[in-house]
């Protein structure tokens, strides 16, 4: 035995496919931001996130084994610290923290199991609606309900200009690193992507207008929305959507409750985005149509 000198040595439990990039591009990533329960890393316009195990994983994330009350702020990791891969299975963040990936398992998305969607489970959609309406808070969208209607109308009329204008009023709207408007767009984009076949379905006005407006928000939030358009999001979001689409009502209830508990407003706003997209799919076939 030897007393180990490393200040913080964390074990990665799961990692998304994109996280493996960091071992290929070695020294290109830097610390973008550090929060109590997340560290974001950046290289150009690509982001990766380190999260506690309890927070779940994602294609661009890795989870580490820490206690629920552990704060990443205690790691001594600062913005702009270099991220180095001293070995092919470990990362050093700043001067003190090492993350060991040697036993980490590649995370797989629950949405990979979703295919051949024809019907939306009404009882699960009702569970989501009930959860959203029972969560009382001063929702930013109470005052921007008009914008949602504007989006709906623009989509129904295949009106790219109107949609662009509506999204310009919603992307980047609200407080936080991922503003409320962005979270709503993320939820809608992810849900729409599940009904579409990559390579077969061409981008519609939704994809075009969303991409066009990403410059209105933070780089990190824009990255999350871009990923949602590609069909990827954080595990909690994907699991909620998966359970609403394919699960039993009890499973949907649990997964939605977990989603709605995320952040101050994020979970609710994403949930609302999922609900709107599913409702419009049910009523107009929006997700599976070109626009």
């Amino acid at each position: 035995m030897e007393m180990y000198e490393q200040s913080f040595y964390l074990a990665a439990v799961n990692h998304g496919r994109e996280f493996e990039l960091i071992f290929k591009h070695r020294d290109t990533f830097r610390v973008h931001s550090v929060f109590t329960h997340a560290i974001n890393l950046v290289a150009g316009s690509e982001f990766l996130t380190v999260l506690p195990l309890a927070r779940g994983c994602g294609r661009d994330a890795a989870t580490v084994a820490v206690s629920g009350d552990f704060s990443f702020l205690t790691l001594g990791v600062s913005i702009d610290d270099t991220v180095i891969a001293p070995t092919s299975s470990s990362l050093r963040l700043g001067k003190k923290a090492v993350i060991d990936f040697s036993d980490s398992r590649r995370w797989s998305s629950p949405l990979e199991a979703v295919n051949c969607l024809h019907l939306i489970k009404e009882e699960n959609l009702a569970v989501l609606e009930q959860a959203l309406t029972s969560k009382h808070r001063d929702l930013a969208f109470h005052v921007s309900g008009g914008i949602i209607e504007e989006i709906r109308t623009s989509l129904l009329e295949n009106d790219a200009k109107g949609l662009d204008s509506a999204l310009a009023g919603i992307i980047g709207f609200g407080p936080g690193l991922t503003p409320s408007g962005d979270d709503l767009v993320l939820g809608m984009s992810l849900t729409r992507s599940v009904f579409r076949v990559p390579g077969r379905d061409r981008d519609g006005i939704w994809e075009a207008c969303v991409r066009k407006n990403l410059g209105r928000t933070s780089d990190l939030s824009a990255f999350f929305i871009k990923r949602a358009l590609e069909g990827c999001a954080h595990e909690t979001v994907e699991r909620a959507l998966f359970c609403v689409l394919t699960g039993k009502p009890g499973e949907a209830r649990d997964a939605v409750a977990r989603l709605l508990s995320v952040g101050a407003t994020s979970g609710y706003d994403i949930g609302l985005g999922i609900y709107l997209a599913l409702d419009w799919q049910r009523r107009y076939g929006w997700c599976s149509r070109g626009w």
Partner: protein
Amino acid sequence: MFKRLVIKPNSYYDSIVLMRLARKVRNIDDVVEAQVGMATDLNKDAVREMGFSSEELEAATPNDLVIAVVAEDEGALDSAERAINEGLEGSVKREETAVKGEKTYATLSEAAAAGDAGIAAISVPGEYAAREAREALASGLHVFLFSDNVSIEDEIRLKKLGKENGLLVMGPDCGTAVIGGVGLGFANKVRPGRIGIVAAAGTGLQQVMSVIDSLGEGISEAIGTGGRDLSEEVGGITTFMGLALLESDSNTAVKVVISKPPHPSVRDNLIRALEDGSKPAVVCFMGEDVKAQRSESGKVLFAGDLEETAVLACRLTSGEGKERLHSDSELDELAYRLARTIDGEGFLRGLYSGGTLCHETLTILRRAGIDAYSNIAQDKEFLLTNPLESVAHTCIDMGEDYFTRGKPHPMLEPGLRIPRHIEEARHEDVGILLFDLVLGYGSHPNPAGVTAEAVKEARRIREDMGKGLVQIAVIVGTAGDPQDVEKQAGILREAGAEVLFSNRAATELVARIIKERGGARPCLR
């Protein structure tokens, strides 16, 4: 990127100095990575991982110093090399540490000369440990040798040298001791008392001390010996010296010896020495089948497990009817309930940070007629060919070298065990997950908090699978430990684990569950 590799042949420096230097160099602007260390295989691997390869590096030996720096420009490399040379020449400022009253010294002999210390605690790579231990003995200090990878020849030389000078050599690979009320290595906060222990088993000692504390008794001294002390080659030098100290110690009323089965010749001498002493004794030779409960004279009691060792020692001390921490009826009731929550094969997977505890579990399971595979199995038939892959009933010592090369021990960082915990939960044929948490000084500040996340994740996985899983935690610790044993237990219970405070009880619970479900199953390979 710019790189520089310097090898300084036959240059030995204290590892603390080198680690400080490496840290100092990494803090230099534009230095991306730096390694400063002796050219051991492990350190050379780390340097190769940085992208260095040269004949000079390959030829370097553990007696050579290797310096490898990667930087964004040549200037940073120059600054780094300058800082290293200054540091090695002794210009590194000796700083007061953050802890009031502590001082740092450049060498062991300097530290010995500066104060009235009686013991040197040594934790440097094994290649250099013997040299430091000799220096400590020459300075008149007892030695607590935490380092492993010390050759048996060096161990014998050191212990003989210590004996000639009346100095204990506790170790090598000594994890725990409590001397004069001060814990060394991994040690629990136990109340002072009249039971003196000599142990060749680190977590075994911690288990016995913790149970003694729970039963209301206390410890006079707890002397670690290192795992090879009772081998034929070493001949129990430290054990006999320790027992002599306990014999003459007025605070000690009962002596305890804990070890794996000693070499027969050493065993006989040991029992004779205990019988010749004036104080009653309890002996636990883990893995040995207890044929008689007492020695011929009746002065020495033989215990079959660690918990029983503590119970017998407490009974000898206070004469009161001290009982085991978990009764048979409690275990029966629990087993009955838990067995019904498991489907399928229901195999056991034990994930241990404490090697002695893992060994005890294998012994108790064997006595119960349940064979289990392990990376530390004595019987080759049950030795895992790949420690990363469990087979049927399996218990893993995750503190063993295979898992800790270049990484912290799982008692320091329990998170390292979590991926395996979750992986085992994914296997449908697994029904029981058994794991230990060893509290005390030196251990992780909140191992239950880290492990609870794995317990919850394992539950979620099994709920998705529609399969039950029993998760059993053994907590070795006391109310006085910095982590607080009850608080840790509460965290794990809330996460969904069953919590017991004795490894013997946890293992017997496992054995009962397996038998409830149809008896001891044959192992599959």
